[in-house]
């Protein structure tokens, strides 16, 4: 179950009150149809389509510059595609972008952390902006990613791998059904990669969905992901 069903509950309420109330909508499967994206005169996404059921993981691969990051940013609605449609739970995400955003977590190349705040303060503000944190939740998440001893240090003094771990703690704390991850294992040691694997596996086990853009394969903890290969 979701540790904090608050966000998901609000999403479900919004979708139920919408005009497209169909059965199974709150399961939130992600459907992408024929996405075409141009950046200047470059045709980046050439008709990408896929469907992702709850509890499924999509591994997006492709050489550098093949549009993995652009695909993730288009999925979460930051970029408008020239053609095509993204729907979540049977409803076009553009119809209520805020409700869709409340259901997703996006982690880009760089962990979204402030250099002049400590790891704990960063999570307090980043997650707190999205949902109310219960006492003790932060400590639990920080301990989970092995940050207990250094979570009071300023982020500017942390290594790239430690920053990535803090971002992973944030991801787990958000407790949302859809994760969009860009290179989640970058800068991590073997133990850190296993942590990413088990976090994703847990997310899938509770019915969440994950789209991950990767250079190397996802950790073995993630069993049988769907694959999507983007051409250069």
């Amino acid at each position, binding site marked *: 179950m979701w540790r904090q069903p608050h966000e998901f509950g609000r999403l479900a309420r919004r979708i139920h009150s919408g005009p497209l109330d169909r059965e199974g909508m709150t399961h939130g499967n992600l459907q992408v149809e024929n996405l075409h994206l141009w950046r200047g005169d470059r045709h980046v996404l050439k008709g990408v389509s896929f469907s992702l059921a709850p509890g499924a993981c999509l591994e997006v691969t492709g050489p550098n510059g093949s549009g993995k990051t652009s695909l993730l940013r288009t999925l979460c609605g930051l*970029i408008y595609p020239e053609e095509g449609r993204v729907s979540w739970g049977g409803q076009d995400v553009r119809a209520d972008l805020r409700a*869709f*955003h409340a259901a*997703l977590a996006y982690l*880009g190349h760089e962990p*979204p952390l402030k250099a002049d705040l400590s790891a704990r303060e960063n999570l307090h503000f980043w997650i707190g*902006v999205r949902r109310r944190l219960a006492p003790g939740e932060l400590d639990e998440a920080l301990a989970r990613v092995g940050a207990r001893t250094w979570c009071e240090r300023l982020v500017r003094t942390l290594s790239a791998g430690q920053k990535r771990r803090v971002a992973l703690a944030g991801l787990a704390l958000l407790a949302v059904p859809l994760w969009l991850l860009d290179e989640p294992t970058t800068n991590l040691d073997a133990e850190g990669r296993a942590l990413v694997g088990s976090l994703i596996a847990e997310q899938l086990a509770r019915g969440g969905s994950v789209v991950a853009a990767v250079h190397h394969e996802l950790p073995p903890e993630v069993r049988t992901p769907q694959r999507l290969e983007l051409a250069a």
Partner: protein
Amino acid sequence: MPARVLAADSAAGQGGAADASLAADAGAALRTARLALLRDLQLAFRQRSQLVQPLAFFAMVTLLFPLAISPELSRLRPVAPGVLWIAALLASLLALEFLFRDDAHDGTLEQYALSGQSLTWLMFAKTAAHWLLTGLPLALMAPVAALSLGVPARALPGIVASVAVGSVTLSLIGSIGAALTLGIKRSGTLLSLLTLPLSLPVLIFGARATELAINGAPLAAPLELLAALAVLGITLAPLAAAAAVRISLE
């Protein structure tokens, strides 16, 4: 009859539920805005140089005039309103570059845009923090600069009030300009070209209020106009800044 009562009851029930959900949304927006404000304040106190720079600039510019024109207070007093306001305008412009730059760089803005919360409220919170960190200190420092220009002490409360109210609008106009120029490298010049023309009404009414304060005349009229501009800005600028941030993130 009972059917009608039932219908009325259920209508009232639905209305109540809608109100409750609206209230919950507003509560969430306020909580979010409060956290964003606190984050910016906490960050500012960790990087104090950004706080001090506009203030030092303001002090320097106002000190240049006695050197350049004349140290005689009788000659400085007539130009004091203009000097104070141009210095305040430029100092607030200087601070604008910091408003979104770091947040855009480290991905915070992206997370704000994807938070599922109202980006308008988040922009409002950021602008409020910016005013607390630049506009308010400028207003509190204005008396020192004014005294060095030969302004009588009785004019000081009026000057503080006009700079405090006027800088609210300057921060709000600046938030739109800063959001629009987010994706551009070395955006300083473009930012000033965008925001300075929009700041002219603030300059005009602010300088007028200061002049009236120096002459000991009632300054309610220009102050009220400054307040009206601030209200207009509070209502519309966060909406525009949120839209501009979305465009810049694409």
